[in-house]
């Protein structure tokens, strides 16, 4: 039978944030502010080994010397880093009790999304590691995975049980001093997911974590590390939700992927955090560093993202193609509505020979929002026969929004073949007219057209995510028809 965690899951997997809610779990909070003592407090709370504390403190000292980046095409009220609780953990005994706590309006939204709670429970092919306010509450399917030798646990557990793996790979893809937010995350990360797929193993199920920012005024600093050993395969899903908050909340996560020889990692994200209200009040600041490295030959990393939430998105999932014949892929749909701002894209760094990368980015701007694609394709000298194809399309749905494309292309090898193309256009009036004529109302017609426009990306998502994402697009663009 379903255990308590399932209800929790049900609530957090799908929702449109008209009706945010707060889970009342008594938190054990660190005082506001950030200094070395707070870092020691977090480290001690989590019973971490000495090397990790040193690593955190080093990151903190580097962070203090850094300045917040301002190059992105976004505009926001600056974050007061001393006004955040850097640690809050739900007390282990108390968990959310029943479905009754769910707002009936929210259930209606679920219905609108077409995912009944019962159906949710039946999605048994998905193992979920729930991260609630920084500490893993529940881990499922662990035994099943253990049979294959797969390690899938929270980061704090991994630090205790597999310190050698964590120590070997943590910070190798995203070094502590990589950027302002990565350094901050390295200093104060409280939890996250850890995954290791052993040699030759094809992970039998989609691994997933659902993040949730829950406690008021807590920054969420997740750290995810996925390692695919030689000839292994894993598909990892990440979905994000958060309840309504008046004050801006900061999310600065770091995700690191390591693919060894012939390994393949597929990382899919549906991000639907609270975007703030119509006037741009509230909403999440999503400043995330995601990067994967194709360390071994013939390895592959594929990022797929559907970004509909957050007030500010600053996110560039990247691939370092170090191994020969390695492949990097980036498929993205970014939707901004009302006063949302997104500056997102990817970096493809070609170092190995015969490396290939594909970038498909679809931006949709509505309302007063701004949506930018910012990407880098770099072909290093000696990366012979590198190949890149990039396509960045933007769709504008109102005359008050903006769509921007800032691709950087740096080529240092003559054998490289690099193509980039971008288009910006309005949603086709003739297409809408065609639908209207056939009795499809404008709102539905737009949803239809947008889904067709994003098909290339949505097709990359695992089945259940794809369904969710399609509906999410429709909900996100609700009321954007002018």
């Amino acid at each position: 039978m379903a255990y308590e965690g399932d209800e929790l899951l049900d609530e957090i997997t799908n929702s449109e944030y008209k009706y945010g809610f707060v889970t009342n779990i008594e938190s054990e909070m660190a005082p506001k502010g950030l200094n070395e003592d707070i870092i020691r407090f977090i480290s001690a709370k989590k019973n971490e080994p000495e090397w990790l504390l040193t690593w955190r403190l080093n990151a903190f000292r580097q962070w203090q010397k850094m300045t917040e980046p301002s190059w992105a095409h976004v505009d926001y009220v600056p974050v007061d880093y001393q006004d955040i609780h850097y640690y809050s953990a739900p007390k282990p005994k108390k968990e959310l009790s029943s479905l009754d706590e769910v707002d009936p309006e929210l259930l209606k939204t679920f219905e609108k999304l077409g995912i009944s709670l019962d159906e949710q429970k039946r999605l048994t092919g998905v193992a979920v590691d729930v991260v609630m306010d920084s500490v893993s509450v529940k881990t499922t399917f662990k035994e099943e995975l253990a049979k294959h030798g797969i390690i899938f646990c929270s980061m704090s557990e991994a630090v205790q049980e597999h310190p050698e793996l964590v120590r070997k790979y943590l910070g190798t893809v995203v070094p502590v001093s990589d950027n302002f937010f990565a350094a901050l995350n390295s200093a104060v990360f409280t939890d996250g997911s850890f995954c290791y797929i052993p040699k030759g193993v094809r992970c039998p199920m989609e691994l997933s974590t659902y993040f949730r920012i829950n406690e008021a005024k807590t920054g969420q600093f997740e750290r995810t590390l996925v390692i695919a050993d030689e000839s292994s395969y894993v598909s990892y899903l990440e979905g994000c939700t958060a309840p309504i908050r008046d004050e801006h909340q900061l999310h600065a996560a770091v995700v690191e992927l390591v693919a060894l020889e012939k390994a393949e990692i597929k990382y899919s994200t549906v991000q639907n955090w609270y975007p703030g209200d119509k006037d741009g009040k509230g909403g999440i600041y999503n400043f995330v560093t995601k990067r994967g490295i194709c360390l071994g030959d013939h390895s592959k990393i594929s990022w797929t993202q559907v970004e509909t939430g957050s007030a500010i998105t600053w996110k560039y999932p990247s691939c370092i193609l170090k191994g020969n014949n390695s492949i990097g892929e980036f498929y993205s749909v970014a939707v901004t509505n009302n006063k949302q701002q997104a500056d997102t894209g990817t970096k493809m760094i070609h170092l190995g020979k015969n490396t290939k990368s594909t970038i498909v980015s679809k931006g949709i701007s509505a309302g007063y929002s701004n949506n930018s694609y910012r990407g880098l394709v770099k072909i290093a000298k000696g990366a012979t026969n590198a190949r890149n194809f990039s396509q960045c399309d933007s769709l504008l749905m109102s005359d008050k929004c903006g769509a921007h494309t800032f691709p950087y292309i740096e080529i240092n090898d003559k054998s490289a073949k690099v193509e980039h193309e971008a288009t910006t256009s309005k949603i086709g009036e003739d297409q809408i007219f065609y639908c209207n004529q056939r009795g499809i109302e404008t709102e539905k017609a737009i949803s239809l057209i947008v889904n067709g426009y994003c098909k290339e990306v949505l097709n990359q998502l695992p089945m259940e995510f794809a369904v969710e994402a399609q509906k999410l697009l429709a909900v996100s663009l609700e009321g954007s028809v002018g």
Partner: protein
Amino acid sequence: METTQQATASAFVESIKAQFPEQLKQSRGTLVGNASYLNFPTQREEDWKYTGISFLQKEKYNFSRFTETIDISAFRQDKNAALIVFVNGFFRSDLSSELPEGLQFSDSVNHEFPEIGERKNMFTGISDAFFTGGIHIQVKKSVEKPVEVLFLSAGGQSVSVVKNHIEISKSASARFRFLFRSADSSSYLTNSITTIHVSANAQFELDQLQFESPAATHYNRTDVTQHRDSKFSINTFSLDGKLIRNDLNIISEGENTETHMRGLYMVNGQQHVDNHTLMDHRVPNCYSNELYKGVMDGKATGVFNGKVFVRRDAQKINAFQSNANVLLSDDARINSKPELEIYADDVKCSHGSTTGQMDEEALFYLRARGIGEESAKKLLIRAYAGEVLDAISDESFRLYLEELIDSRFHWNNV
């Protein structure tokens, strides 16, 4: 507090100021002092990310009116065209020809120019304070013959600071050709700033040839304002020079304008060419098309940064932008950054950027038909460059450019 960049810039500006002719200092007034507060561009700035000019700090340039006799016939293309000559930035009436009717010309040293406010940098500051000449022209009615303006550098270590202003009156049309050439292979600095006003219903075509000495540094900025129903075309050919930086800013201020921007940069050795373009669509119902093509050989570097900006409510804009590059050697590099910044929804805008090498199969095809490797490569590059060259309305000028391109590259080494 003065930053290092400011200190470097003021040292550089001071070295130029020291050489600046006394008699001109008076007329420039405070601008002479203003120039030194600007920053010396470094690669930490987004605008100069791929172009380093720190070598300029070691250079000492001087203003010199070159008085020796020069045979300029080798530098001009069309013997029939009207000709205006500047040597080291100074107007030479003795070398210039009579101008056709409809043009009102004077040396810009006799005019006052407003300080460049937007997107200013050290070079615009130097230009504001220390320009020694340039064309100041009003095209009052259509001129059939092309007008050639030769900017010649001679004698070495010279600095040419020219400021040009061209105004095309309502419904007039004209074709101008700027030839930036060198009498020798010495090192020098060219700083050329041109403002162009294309009035309502007017047409203007500007062809720029940058065929400088291999040791020369060239900063070029062209600011264009287009009014209602006007048409403007600019073709820039950067074929020789140590470092060439072109900033092209076009503002479309009236409806129904048509704009064409084309560029061809072919460089080898250690050369560096940087093209920055900005197409600013401020009003609805306009069209712009941009095509820049590059060939990089040796250790040369190409930089392209094109931006299309569509302002709020500038609806029904069709803006296209394309950048293509061919790398011929292992050490050649290209950095391309095409940008779109769009704030209106009923628009069609696109950009594309491609980079590749010479098509092996096409080469094989030609060689299999008995065409030698060198000729085959030449043919392919010509065909590639042809797309830009074809845009030149004057056929003799196009043929002239093709010859120049052939003389520059020794394709057997490719």
